[in-house]
């Protein structure tokens, strides 16, 4: 990761040693994210996968500075967001936007679609009413909604998929550079999920977006991402180009995750999940050394003593494991 790249100027988001900790009550600290680093290049989609409780949502919100991370830096186009004072951060927010998992809770039930989608314009812009309305209509039809029919409605009059389109319209109305998607399709039915995934790809192309896409669904992540990062208990296990990661998983956890995906194909043999049965350790008291060692079938004494450093096994493929799988 330290290797200086020539295309440094093309890195739109650089996250270094991001740490998110919060008070878990009882005086214990929850280590939600424990030092993760990654870059996202312009026009690229980085997928972030992991099971519930791995800290992927905390990481996404820390990038958004909602709330700010406990430690670490988040450079957006060279500007460290984590160190900016509040008032300087506020105008910059137009550059990075987010959509959320819950399509219903994402929209204020008491405000009309016009006001919801136009909200960012009211906060950030100085457009006149007419210009504003034109933009709102434009962006609504961009996400596949009939602007005339939707503008004056309240969110409860829409289905989950439509709500997610409205959220997306709100997120892109300011033409952000970076869009963070936190499980945007997890609450949707399969057929609607496909619509929204296609829409995201379209929007990405049309608005030159760079995306950080978070999901627990490996198939969905592969579909939309150029590169994929796997997270377990607050740490990055593995990061690689999508095709490479799915074909040659190097971290035992990645391999187990992939084996567990049920394929909609009875001919495909059921994968054997190579993972020690047991529970996800508590993020208030993570294991020493490698965090996955308590469930890793290949764990050695070294794994408990020393935390594995992320190492590059092939160009762009880094694995944080003392004994990565080969082949």
């Amino acid at each position, binding site marked *: 990761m330290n290797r200086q790249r020539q295309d440094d100027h093309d890195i739109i988001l650089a996250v270094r040693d991001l740490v998110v900790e919060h008070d878990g009550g009882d005086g214990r600290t929850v280590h939600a994210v424990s030092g993760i680093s990654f870059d996202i290049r312009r026009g690229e989609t980085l997928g972030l996968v992991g*099971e*519930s409780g791995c800290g992927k949502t905390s990481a996404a919100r820390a990038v958004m500075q909602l709330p700010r991370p406990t430690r670490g830096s988040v450079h957006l186009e060279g500007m460290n967001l984590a160190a900016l004072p509040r008032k300087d951060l506020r105008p910059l927010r137009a550059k990075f936007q987010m959509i959320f998992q819950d399509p219903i809770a994402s929209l204020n039930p008491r405000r009309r679609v016009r006001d919801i989608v136009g909200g960012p314009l009211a906060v950030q812009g100085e457009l006149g009413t007419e210009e504003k309305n034109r933009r709102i209509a434009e962006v609504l039809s961009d996400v596949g909604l009939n602007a005339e029919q939707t503008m004056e409605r309240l969110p409860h009059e829409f*289905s989950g*998929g439509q709500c997610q389109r409205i959220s997306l319209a709100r997120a892109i109305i300011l033409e952000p550079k970076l869009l963070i998607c936190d499980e945007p399709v997890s609450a949707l*039915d*399969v*057929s*609607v*999920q*496909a*619509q929204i*995934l*296609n829409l995201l*790809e379209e929007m990405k192309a049309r608005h030159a977006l760079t995306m950080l896409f978070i999901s*627990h*669904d*490996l*198939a*969905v992540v*592969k*579909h*939309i*991402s*150029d590169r994929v990062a796997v997270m377990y208990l607050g740490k990055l296990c593995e990061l690689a180009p*999508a*095709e490479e990661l*799915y074909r040659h998983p190097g971290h035992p956890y990645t391999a*187990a*995750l*992939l*084996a*567990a*995906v*049920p*394929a*909609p*194909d*009875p*001919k*495909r043999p*059921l*994968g054997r*999940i190579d*993972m020690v*049965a047991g*529970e*996800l350790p508590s993020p208030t008291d993570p294991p020493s050394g490698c965090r996955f060692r308590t469930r890793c079938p290949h764990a050695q004494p070294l794994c408990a003593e020393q935390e594995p450093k992320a190492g590059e096994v092939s160009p762009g493929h880094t694995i944080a494991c003392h004994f990565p799988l080969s082949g």
Partner: protein
Amino acid sequence: MAMPLLQVIDQRTYFETGRGLLRAVDGVDFELHQGRTLGVVGESGCGKTVLARSIMGLLPSNTRVGEGSRIIFDGRDLGALDEKSLRALRGSEIAMIFQDPMTSLNPVLTVGKQIGETLIRHHGLSRHAARGRAVELLRDVGIPQPEVRVDQYPHQLSGGMRQRVAIAIALSCQPRLLIADEPTTALDVTVQADILDLLRRQQIERDMSMILITHDMGVVAGRSDEVAVMYAGRIVEWAETPELFRNTRMPYTAALLNSIPRVDDPPHRRIDAIAGRPPDLIHPPKGCLFAPRCGHVEQRCRRHSPPLQLASDGTHAQACWFPQSVGTTP
């Protein structure tokens, strides 16, 4: 062939709502034989959960069940049984597992008590014997340290463990039919595989019949003998599992399969999404309910509703006027 364990005949379950009668399940027929697993697949609102609850007889008070609807379990017409006999059947011969293990276990009762009360109720065990049996059951479903866990409360267990407890409850009285309603939807993918394997293993070991309800084609693909696809309150396609995936006939099933992203696909492949939404079940359109979204729609589809037709070889049925015999993804 022997008599089926379960026969569902023209099941119609309607709900009275503020806007009118909602046809949640609208004419479902199927049979299930001893020792077989039927996967019921469909998107939310297709009526799969209502179908399960109709079989269990667990329906809210605003329910209207159709005149000709029959559910025959082991030769007994459940609709004709009184509430007392139904209660004796539930939990002992037909058992059920719910979607969310966080909410389906009582937070104020110990795990052992929740397993044991079924045994006390149906098998007349003493408290002591029930507790002993609960420990055995916990061991059977793969819970470590069952002697300790038996006295714990649900909140002390993880999601996967709770679902194992729910399975232990369901298995406690050796049911002949197990209905699992989205048993892994609320769980992580690695836990999901364990739970599905456990269910399949228990089903085979105990020679139970099982109805596995899910929205995930991947879940039924490897773990069922036959699959019924539901859409808008009806079964639109039924077949033996390999047959259904190999030789999909109903356009909805094909479209559903095509809209699933797969780990084998290359990144950024455009998915063939199904346009539109499922129909309003209070004012359903005329004809085939999938017609407004179907890519192969003809005039006839919009006028007349197709019945579920069994092919001559008896292994495949579809409710479609123009069945396609194309496979899905090559």
